[in-house]
């Protein structure tokens, strides 16, 4: 594996050596490495590109890494990954895609991830997106996440787009049964002429289900971001959506939140704030000896941490 590949894997999956536990590494549209464990099976799909990840009931303290890297331009990689998480399993899943494009052709990866969590299953899902490369070719990532949470299942999703992605449309759909809980935290940074669009569509169908979405983003230069969310409370449930954005230079952010209470016991909250870095924050850090530029960096880094 060369240095470019190593760096991409480190950026998106924090992998420096061979990961522990189950993994599947996909490079330029092909699986290049795989490991399964007694409790976690990974099976290549027969009808379309992608894999099934099958996790046995009661599997605990195990992890699955399924990073995707693209190091060639002119590639449009579409992949379907399905996760079947058995009853009361409790695992960590790390996905993510890194693109290194040094050509003038577009490199694109569209990952469609569907999660099926059985009763009482619990996962932490980490997904990082990253782009780099000196070429003028675009780096496009359009992830789709479809979440089906069974009774009392819970999922924590951390979605981070670090930098270097020319355009992205990120869609997340969730259907939630009785007592299930979903916590999503999203961090996005766009620069130059990049665009990013995020869509969250959550159906709170089960009694006492709850969702918490926290999105923090920074739009620099001439980049544009759009945040769309629609949380439907169809029973006694709780939903909280928080969208915070910092805009710099000519950056633009459009926030389009929607909450829909279809039951008198649904409790839904939406908070959104967009603005530039508060002047008093810069001043405070400058009184501690930072230059304006350094103060800006600290504030942005902290905000996106």
């Amino acid at each position, binding site marked *: 594996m060369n240095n470019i590949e190593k760096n991409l894997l480190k950026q998106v999956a924090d992998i420096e050596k061979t990961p522990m536990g189950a993994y599947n590494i996909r490079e330029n549209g092909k699986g290049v490495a795989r490991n399964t464990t007694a409790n976690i099976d990974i099976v290549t799909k027969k009808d379309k590109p992608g894999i099934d990840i099958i996790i046995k009931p009661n599997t605990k303290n195990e992890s699955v890494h399924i990073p995707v890297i693209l190091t060639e331009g002119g590639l449009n990689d579409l992949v379907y990954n399905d996760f079947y998480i058995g009853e009361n399993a409790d695992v960590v899943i790390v996905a993510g895609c890194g693109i290194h494009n040094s050509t003038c052709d577009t490199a694109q990866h569209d990952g469609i991830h569907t999660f099926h969590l059985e009763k009482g299953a619990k996962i932490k899902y980490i997904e990082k997106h990253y782009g780099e490369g000196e070429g003028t070719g675009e780096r496009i990532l359009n992830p789709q996440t479809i979440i089906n949470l069974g009774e009392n299942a819970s999922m924590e999703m951390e979605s981070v787009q670090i930098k270097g992605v020319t355009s992205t449309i990120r869609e997340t759909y969730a259907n939630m049964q009785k007592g299930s809980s979903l916590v999503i935290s999203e961090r996005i940074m766009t620069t130059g002429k990049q665009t990013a669009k995020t869509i969250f569509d959550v159906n709170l169908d089960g009694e006492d289900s709850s969702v918490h979405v926290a999105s923090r983003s920074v739009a620099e230069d001439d980049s544009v971001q759009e945040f769309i969310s629609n949380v439907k409370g169809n029973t006694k449930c709780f939903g909280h959506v928080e969208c915070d954005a910092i805009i710099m230079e000519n950056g633009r952010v459009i926030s389009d939140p929607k909450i829909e209470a279809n039951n008198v016991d649904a409790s839904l909250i939406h908070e959104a704030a967009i603005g530039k870095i508060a002047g008093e924050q810069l001043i405070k850090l400058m009184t501690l000896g930072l*230059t*304006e530029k350094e103060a800006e960096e600290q504030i942005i880094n*902290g*905000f996106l941490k």
Partner: protein
Amino acid sequence: MLELQDICFSRDNKDILKNVNLKIDNEKMVVITGPNGSGKSTLAKIIMGIETPDSGKIIFDGKDITELSITERAKEGIGFAFQQPVRFKGLTVKDLIEISAGNSLKLCDACDVLADVGLCAQEYLNREVNSELSGGELKRIEIAMLAAKKSKLTIFDEPEAGIDLWSFNNLISVFEKMHDDIKGSIVIISHQERILNIADEIVLITNGTVGKHGPREEVLPQIFGKIKPCHKLENKERCNKGGTVNE
């Protein structure tokens, strides 16, 4: 030593500071007091470089710093604890204390400055300095940041505001400890008699001018009509006994 020469500052046709002349000697604990709206915070902001005076000069350690930026003044050794501390989404107490100390801070030193202001490091170091913190907690963190910065001259703008009575003496110990450790000057803007009682010197600002400036023994009776010199001793003793905030 800090010297303000003929500082004038007006905004919206209102003279906020009028020909302010003031000297703050090294190693002095100076308390600035005066009515609401008299211009105390404005004066502090002018010293820090946050506001620019319309005329006048600021000399710090023999150097004219009138034209220096906030950052440059901070590096020269001026520190300022805000009357209303700023909240940051994302930055933690640890981040801010590290930035204050210039990133060269050991974890145990960070714990020490927090303990001095009565905050348990374990509980607070990794907390975000956001709207979840109470006003008093925020004030304490602000003071801890300045204790970590160790400036030659530190200005505290109403540090006691929002700090509960129980912790008041410990707050005073923090100032005295800083004063002893750093051997710098400490300027405290305050309305509190108990803070006035620990001053070497008192400056009274009224209507944008220095109304009175002199040793505490002289100025305090003119403000309150009586003097209570024993307070300072009491606090010194408490400090020497190593009293903690939650005693």
